[in-house]
């Protein structure tokens, strides 16, 4: 049960930790590029973690009611809504991200950016946290010796958070131009991932029609392997996605790629930098 708890908690924590790291790397870029601590307040991180855990707790307490709604596909509908909202907010974040240096412009945008970040992180913790609570609550409720599971959870959470920290330092260790490129790329892949997950959930609920599998790369990279799991958490890798999922993924990707910050990242950066 120990290893089982490690893997389960790790999987759940990883996704939220990676999104948080990515957003923090964006904040660092903004502060560096503008020469000011535009988003210096770390409060938004604490706010989103508290809100996320609280919402996950409410979700867990109403789990059966949510699950039984919509003719037993309430979970899929709820999660698909959460994924869609996250996708939309990540795209909005990309479009709001300041590309001009003027202080008024930065201040004007900072509230919107913080809103996007708080809601995205809150939703990620809600999504992943409620599953951990289901798992943990079920075992504790049964009165089993819960200690190995608790330790397993702690170890899993530790590895998950460490991976997030590692990603943050990987992103911020690059030169400022490459850091922005990597952040924008990862943001677009995350938005695509959210869109694709929403489609998958609606397929599972039978709210969207079946579409054939686009490809099968399970021979190349199995979803159950460690690397496959990491790729799943980071960029939503699936070995056998449906055509509709791939289309949604590309659409999410597209909306971030055409945003001003993405154009800035891939333009001749040095010329533009003087205008930031």
């Amino acid at each position: 049960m120990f290893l089982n708890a490690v893997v389960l908690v790790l999987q759940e924590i990883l996704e939220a930790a990676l999104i948080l790291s990515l957003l923090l790397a964006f904040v660092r870029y903004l502060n560096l590029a503008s020469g000011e601590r535009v988003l210096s307040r770390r409060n938004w991180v604490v706010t989103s973690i508290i809100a996320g855990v609280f919402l996950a707790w409410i979700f867990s307490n109403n789990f059966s009611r949510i699950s039984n709604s919509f003719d037993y596909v309430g979970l899929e509908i709820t999660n698909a809504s959460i994924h869609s909202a996250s996708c939309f907010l990540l795209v909005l974040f990309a479009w709001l991200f300041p590309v001009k240096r003027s202080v008024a412009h930065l201040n004007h945008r900072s509230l919107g950016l913080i809103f996007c970040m708080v809601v995205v992180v809150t939703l990620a913790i809600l999504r992943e946290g409620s599953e951990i609570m289901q798992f943990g609550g079920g075992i504790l409720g049964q009165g089993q010796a819960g200690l190995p599971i608790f330790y397993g959870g702690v170890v899993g959470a530790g590895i998950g958070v460490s991976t997030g920290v590692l990603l943050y330092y990987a992103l911020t260790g690059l030169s400022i131009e490459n850091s922005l490129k990597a952040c924008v790329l990862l943001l677009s892949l995350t938005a695509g991932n959210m869109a694709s997950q929403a489609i998958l959930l609606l397929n599972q609920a039978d709210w969207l029609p079946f579409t054939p599998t686009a490809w099968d790369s399970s021979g190349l990279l199995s979803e159950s392997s460690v690397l496959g799991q990491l790729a799943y958490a980071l960029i939503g890798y699936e070995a056998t996605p449906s055509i509709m999922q791939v289309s949604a993924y590309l659409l999410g990707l597209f909306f971030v790629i055409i945003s001003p910050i993405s154009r800035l990242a891939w333009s001749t950066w040095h010329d533009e930098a003087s205008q930031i």
Partner: protein
Amino acid sequence: MSESAMLSMTKNTGPMLIVLSLLIALSFVTELAKAETLEVELRIRDHLFFPSTLIIPANQKVKIRVINEDPTPEEFESFELNREKVIAAHSQTVIFIGPLEVGEYPFFGEFYPKTAQGVVVAK
């Protein structure tokens, strides 16, 4: 002012009608599909799946009714089927799969993967 409003109305009614008729068509199709969906039952007892081999027809959508008799929640998960869903203790839920090509699709209970193992066989 009113002229432009009229203009925008006539401009918008075309696409709106198309969307509306598509939605109506889609709802008919889904209703039709629902009526034909085959339902199979999968029970969870003592962290085991019954039956552990679920034989279903290939190339057809199937509704799996998962009934969890255990006092603990379980998560139905399958990489091959691209499915993942938590089922609360002492409750039931529904998971749609397919249409599947002929083949075997393993699934497991993520909360108790050592014992909760099964396979969907599409024939």
